[in-house]
């Protein structure tokens, strides 16, 4: 009986060690982002396709080279229902129950900031790619495991001001600006950076207002803006209102030389919806589509996910994942502190070019794009080449 027990113990020990070895071949990566709720649309456009595409590509190539092993990625997805509380709970579940090795960044400024403390508590590398906020220096100090790729709201707002300034210098528009924003963290941050910057650059703000999140009945806003006779119309808006404001401006035939809207302008569906009327509309983001890495990325995205990427945060989301993968390989292990150190100090080959982070932030971002001939090309950038200078918007037909 003792021998039988001993044999059983030995057999199960052997089986356990084999099982242990088998599961050590995969890297568990958790991803929590909206699949329902107000930001589900944005995440479905910008976030999830890139996450799934990256995991698929890595696994098809055999996995990441971690030290002397090739390890494939096991992706665990959770829906945070666009709720900060749900997102924090998901992070906790991923860390304690699923015991993932790494976590993909959440989606949107608000949710990234809300989950950052929890992610920092477990010391996961947190490479944000869809958070645009002026709090980056403060956040980096508080959470040294966090990295911010998309730029600050100030950079994005300044990009818009720079584009308008250049157009005014070229004599294409005058001095009068109508400025509206959605009453949400994103809109408020951009407004607090953008309004003083416009005034400093000598622009006159002839109409200013805000509207609640989710508003799609914007006829009064456009009417009032038109009545103020602006040369340029700027809206810090979210996808629903971006589309609504543009449609109303088209219907009421707003005659401005520059028309700028916020999130959603860079979506291919914006161009598909408005067709020729989209010509000359500016918005947040833009990428250099002349770069072959970007073109290759767009082709691969279309082939793998069946949809075009957007012309703003999609490429950054993919680049953030590339950085994570390369940092893991450079560290040679799944040790989170080592990977964080790699991200902080290394140079990475991404679809956005060679990236080296300064103080945990990406200083080089495209800030403003413009639809010209069906392509959303970069017209303002910090530290990167733009595709062209902005052109005047000539009517809506």
């Amino acid at each position: 009986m003792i021998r039988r027990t001993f044999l059983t113990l030995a057999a199960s020990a052997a089986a356990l060690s084999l099982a242990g070895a088998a599961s050590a071949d995969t890297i568990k990566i958790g991803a929590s982002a909206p699949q329902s709720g107000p930001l589900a649309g944005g995440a479905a456009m910008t976030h999830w396709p890139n996450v799934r595409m990256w995991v698929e590509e890595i696994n098809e190539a055999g996995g990441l080279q971690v030290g002397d092993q090739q390890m494939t990625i096991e992706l665990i997805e959770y829906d945070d229902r666009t709720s900060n509380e749900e997102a924090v709970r998901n992070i906790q579940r991923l860390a304690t129950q699923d015991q993932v090795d790494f976590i993909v960044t959440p989606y949107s400024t608000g949710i990234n900031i809300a989950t950052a403390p929890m992610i920092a508590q477990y010391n996961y590398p947190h490479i944000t790619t869809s958070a645009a906020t002026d709090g980056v220096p403060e956040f980096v100090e508080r959470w040294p495991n966090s990295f911010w790729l998309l730029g600050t709201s100030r950079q994005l707002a300044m990009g818009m001001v720079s584009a308008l300034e250049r157009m005014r210098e070229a004599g294409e528009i005058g001095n009068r600006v109508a400025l509206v924003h959605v009453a949400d963290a994103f809109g408020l941050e951009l407004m607090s950076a953008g309004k003083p910057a416009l005034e400093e650059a000598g622009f006159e703000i002839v109409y200013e207002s805000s509207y609640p999140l989710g508003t799609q009945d914007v006829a009064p806003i456009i009417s009032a803006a038109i009545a103020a006779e602006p040369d340029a119309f700027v809206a810090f808006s979210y996808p629903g209102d971006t589309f609504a404001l543009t449609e109303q401006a088209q219907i009421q035939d707003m005659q401005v030389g520059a028309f700028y809207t916020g999130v959603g302008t860079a979506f291919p569906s914006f161009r598909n919806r408005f067709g020729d009327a989209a010509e000359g509309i500016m918005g947040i983001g833009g990428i250099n589509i002349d770069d072959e890495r970007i073109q290759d990325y767009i082709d691969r995205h279309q082939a793998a996910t069946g949809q075009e990427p957007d012309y703003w945060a999609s490429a950054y989301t993919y680049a953030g994942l590339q950085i994570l993968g390369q940092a893991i390989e450079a560290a040679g292990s799944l040790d989170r502190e080592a990977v964080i150190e790699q991200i902080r100090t290394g140079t990475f080959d991404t679809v956005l070019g060679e990236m080296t982070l300064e103080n945990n932030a990406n200083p080089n971002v495209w800030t403003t794009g413009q639809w010209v001939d069906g392509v959303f090309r970069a017209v303002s950038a910090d530290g990167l080449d733009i595709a062209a200078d902005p052109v005047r918007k000539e009517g809506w037909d």
Partner: protein
Amino acid sequence: MTIIVTGILLGGTYALIAMGLTLQYGVARIMNLANGETLVAACFIAFWLFTAYHINPLLGLLVIAPAAFVINGAIYWYLLKPLVDRAKNRGQLEVDSILATFGLLFLLQGIMILAFGGAYFSYTFLAERFMILGSPYGLNRVVAFVAAAVIAVGLYIYLFHTRQGTAVRAVAVDPTSANLVAIDVARTAMIAFALGGALTACGGALLSTFYTFNASMGVVFTMKALIIVIMGGVGDVRGAVIAALVLGIAETAVASLIDPGLTIAATYALFILVLLFRPQGIFGRQQS
């Protein structure tokens, strides 16, 4: 002047959202929290018919409305009628129906997310300039308003000038008394619920011509519809239409004359005022 016209157009939009719920709540006594999901589902069907088969949404109504009628009727008969039969009083039925339709909301939302994903959808239909009294308005909104008016008039004729419709109104007043005058309450409630669903679906198809929608937006519409239904008096379609118009004009006036940021505050302020001074709603009857 533009404020009034814009406000009336907006009121027409709101009426489309609310007419269905007032029938469902007022007659079938079901607080249908999944009402918004029916609306969004209709948006998706209209979008699909338009982009895949180039079927005009107005023609698509001929398909969407009957389909919604049948599906909502089935939902009432198999899911909600057992609750009605079981409820000992109206309060219990309300609680039960809220819980049941709340679950239905997530079920329908989940199906739509599975089928269409979470992305935003929109399409361009009649997004042209239409001049009324010298000012430009979206033709799609004008068409939606005209359709809303036609539907409202049709509904009025049905409810006030036909036998079936009068039975529906009778059940709205008091189901027990209606039973006593040989009205088949269960069947009438089912028809009212199904009709409410069909109306909401018509609203959804028309709204999809100028709103950007995604699978998760149902709740927003349900909340708006709820306010309008309660303001107008539960169960009375005339009240819902009047309340919708009042709300549309008030919102547009506030957005134009005061601040667009106060539209939601204005909506709820109006709601509170109505509840303070006339809790049964504009056309509602006093609780006896």
